[in-house]
């Protein structure tokens, strides 16, 4: 804090803002963050970017239809609205305390979600080739299509394993069932991002609670807790993940996305628990905790109001590496054929790149592989520079 005071005309920056500013000083984290923003955009607006249904079609019989909007699922509407609300809350109401903005956003989003899931009922049957038929018959006067005019599950089995080409418009080629790789990439980003963020949050919550309890109480709680941590640390995480996914009850298959989030979450909490524990063990000897105790503050208050915020910063660094790890875990599971059924996934596409006859489909390896790599790299870059920004020792060295 002394460093700040020495600066001329100091803008009143909070600790968070300061860390953010330090984090984004280098080129690397900026590029990383930019990629994450692009990816979030792709994930949120996936059906508006890659869809077999055009936005609007005017046919020769004079009718104007909007197939894309008719076939939108509730989540396709809810996600963009929630994102817009978040942007609004962040940019427009800067004066209002962050806590209130967050609360309002959560409430509004829940309302939007509920409204979407209650009101939007897309048709049960997908008729991808309807528009194509119309074009073939010469019935279409004009149409506005999405930049990638293919849905991820729009399979044309006569177009298997097409190499990338501009004509036909298959920028990243097609996969084994004749679906568009680019479209699948875009839609897969949604799953990857969701699993990465939510699985890490789950791991974080479990880790912080267990680690916090261990660090605060120490003694026998710590001893038992450490054994628990050791148990989970001794089994290779990926091995545990494999067992859990493989033995999952088949009734959960429709919710496999959520199950995978939970599974990746509960195999990943050990690191956070250790971190929080160590941090708490360090903090509990410090003056401010002692004085809080001397003041007779209740346990929960000390734990969560005083100790947690102080111990949190380094944990967040770990979390950003954690997201990268979760995305990797998801793609590896999908690669091994244990991922979601009939859903696009980067890992699954990667596994298809070497076919049974041994011919190598480079586009099936390169594009999904790069997507995984760039995302993981971006999170690691951000995490790295976040760590440098938080840690006063390396702050000088943070050259990235």
């Amino acid at each position, binding site marked *: 804090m002394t460093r700040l005071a020495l600066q001329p005309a100091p803008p009143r920056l909070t600790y968070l803002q300061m860390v953010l500013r330090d984090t984004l000083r280098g080129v690397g984290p900026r590029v990383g963050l930019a990629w994450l923003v692009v990816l979030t955009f792709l994930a949120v607006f996936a059906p508006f970017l890659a869809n077999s249904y055009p936005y609007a079609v005017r046919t020769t019989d004079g009718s104007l239809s909007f197939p894309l909007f008719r076939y939108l699922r509730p989540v396709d509407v809810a996600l963009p609205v929630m994102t817009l609300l978040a942007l609004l809350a962040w940019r427009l109401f800067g004066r209002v305390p962050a806590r209130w903005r967050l609360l309002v956003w959560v409430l509004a989003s829940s309302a939007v979600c509920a409204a979407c899931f209650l009101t939007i009922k897309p048709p049960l*049957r997908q008729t991808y080739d309807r528009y194509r038929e119309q074009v073939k018959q010469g019935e279409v006067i004009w149409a506005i299509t999405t930049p990638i005019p293919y849905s991820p599950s729009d399979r044309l089995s006569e177009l298997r394993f097409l190499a990338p080409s501009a004509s036909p418009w298959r920028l990243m080629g097609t996969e*084994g*069932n004749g679906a568009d790789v680019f479209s699948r990439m875009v839609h897969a980003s949604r799953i990857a991002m969701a699993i990465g963020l939510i699985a890490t949050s789950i791991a974080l919550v479990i880790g912080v609670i267990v680690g916090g309890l261990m660090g605060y109480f120490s003694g026998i709680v710590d001893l038992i807790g450490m054994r628990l941590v050791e148990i989970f640390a001794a089994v290779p995480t990926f091995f545990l993940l494999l067992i859990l996914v493989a033995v999952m009850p*088949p009734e959960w298959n429709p919710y496999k996305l959520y199950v995978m989030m939970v599974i990746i979450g509960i195999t990943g909490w050990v690191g956070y628990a250790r971190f929080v524990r160590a941090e708490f063990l360090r903090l509990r000897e410090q003056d401010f905790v002692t004085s809080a105790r001397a003041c007779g503050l209740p346990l929960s208050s000390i734990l969560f109001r005083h100790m947690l915020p102080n111990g949190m910063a380094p944990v967040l660094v770990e979390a950003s590496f954690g997201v990268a790890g979760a995305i990797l875990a998801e793609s590896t599971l999908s690669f091994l054929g244990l991922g979601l059924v009939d859903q696009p996934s980067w890992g699954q596409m990667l596994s298809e790149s*070497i076919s*049974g*006859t*041994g011919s190598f489909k480079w586009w099936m390896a390169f594009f999904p592989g790069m997507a995984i790599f760039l995302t993981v790299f971006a999170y690691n870059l951000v995490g790295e520079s976040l760590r440098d920004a938080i840690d006063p020792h390396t702050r000088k060295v943070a050259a990235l």
Partner: protein
Amino acid sequence: MENRFGFKDLVTLVLLVVVIAMVYLSMVQFDRQWDDIKALNNNITTLTNNQSQMRSQIDKLSEKLDKGVAIVQPNGTHTATTDGNPTPTASIPNNGLHGLYEARTEPDFAEGDTVVDAFGTQIKSVTALTYKDLYGRRIQSFVIESLAVQDDDTLEFLPLIAESWKIDDHSKDYDAYLAKKKPELEAKVDADATLLDPIRKGMLDELTKTGQKPPEPGSDDDKALTADAREKWIDQQVRDDPERPSALVVTFKLRKDVRFSDGVPLTAHDVQFSWELMNNPLLNAPETRNFYDNVESYKALDDYTVEFRFREPNFLAFDMAAGFGILPKHFYEKFSIEDINSKPGLLMGSGRYRMPDPESWAPGKLMKLVRNENYWGPKPGPAALIWLEIEEDVSRMASFKNGQIDYFAATSEQFDELKKDEKITSRYTPFNYLPVPTGYSFVAWNVTREGKPTIFADKRVRQAMTYLIDRQRIAKEVMLGYASPTSGPFDDKSRQADPDIKPREYDPKKALELLKQVGWKPGADGVLRNAKGEPFAFTLTYPSGSDTYERIMLMLKDSFNRAGILMTQDPQQWSIFIERVDGRAFDACALAWGGGSIEGDIRQMFHSSQIANGANNFTSYINPELDKLIDEARRTIDEDKRMKLWQACHRILYEDQPYTFLLRRQSTTFIDKRFHNVKRVTTGLNDRSEWYVPAGQQLRGE
């Protein structure tokens, strides 16, 4: 600072590591040598055995000669020449070895060279009786022989170890006995219902064990269960009745010149021992025991005569006795049952090939059979057979392209690609053919779920579903033409199938019409709906893990979707899939039945008695007429009559479509051109022991 870790220490450490590595490598090298030495040792033992036996035989012979015995050439059998092989002029006997004799009469026949094949998996075990997979069975077929073999072209049984047999059909006595005994038993059980209690209890336990709810007392289900128990009780009483006449008695006369690969003669006691070993409850072969349950007794009457008795008349009875592999008693007796269960490499027999070491093979070691130099018949051409284990499709194909594999079973995709490659076709002959028996894939439509009829209960719906599946297109696009649509459970060319029935063509219009008749009409969104407005939706369950399956399912989904039927894919791991099928908890499922025996028995899939207790009629399909036909056919020993009955079954199945029969898949293989006498026969290709490589073209040593 005394214990500072310096540069010198580093060097010492590195040196230490190097020394350890060298020691390890030399140990590996010794291990390799040791394996070779063991195989050599084993060869020497066999040779010594042989020599001592030959000496004793020569001694006997010279004794006889001294006494002055005339040597007469018996008619109809081959003359023994000095090398134990027949002269080309001798007439070829009509037994299981005629293929070998024929091969040896070819002018350019030569012994030597090796056939290298590749399996797509690791062989788990080759130990007789306890092997668990197809691959184990394949290896066995070269090492172990049976009493008689089915000719691969005419499909009739030819003598092998047995020189002749006699079949006594007592099924008339049996039927008469049954006609008399059954009413007696029925009266007895109806008089005293408590007799059924132990069986009922067993059935209820079975239900709870498989996670189903036992029926309420007095309910229809409960009554059905009691009726089942009554049937079972009667069967059991009949089975345990010592006065029951055997339905069939088969007596085999064995040849006297058959020897195991270690030179020990094969006698009727070996036959009896093989059956006893299989029936030992400790042996890990419960499925085999169950299969041969109909065999009541097996007895060596003297050294070269065996008698088999069968409980019930059944068209497969003779096949069971004749086709069972005969094991050497003196060899397997050495081991405890635990050993036979857990050792993967205990394999010895009287066949054309033998394991280099009959005891110590283990998974991961090279799977190699060498020619049985002691073979009692004419010796085959190839000196050794090798099976490589290459799990990845890609690596297997790479090895093939490098010329390391002589017999390559390609996938349709690989076959299609390689067939166009001139480098390959100049060296290998491509074969694609429908072997007999072939399995077939199908979609099974569940008729009853949780006691209620499903949407597939009406046969018109099932017919419509078949019309909606473009099997030609699946065969062309997924199987690249190396499969053909099929109309029923029997091989299309077999006599069991009605030759007039052709698979239904893809015809969505007809399908929609049929569905309309039942009450499914397209709604505003194009989805078919019934009068209540419910959409036509179902889940198709299938085993996960196969790309081919996955692609077929996607095609089905798209084509149903076009017709307005909503299908949800539900791939499941095999164990869970089976659980679903056993519990009848599915709408429709896709699966394939394997080849089975040459004359297929359809009772387990389509007979109504196979619905209860998780048996294999998992669609709960009932047709009393079909039941009667199946029972009749199974009891009929006369072949022509039986075939008529099977054809009638085929017609009913075609009309009812309990399954939509999808495809029969062709075998697609490449075989090195240096092998001569590779022939297409009814079952596929002739046995590889009948192939040979002319002297100049031999490529591999032993």
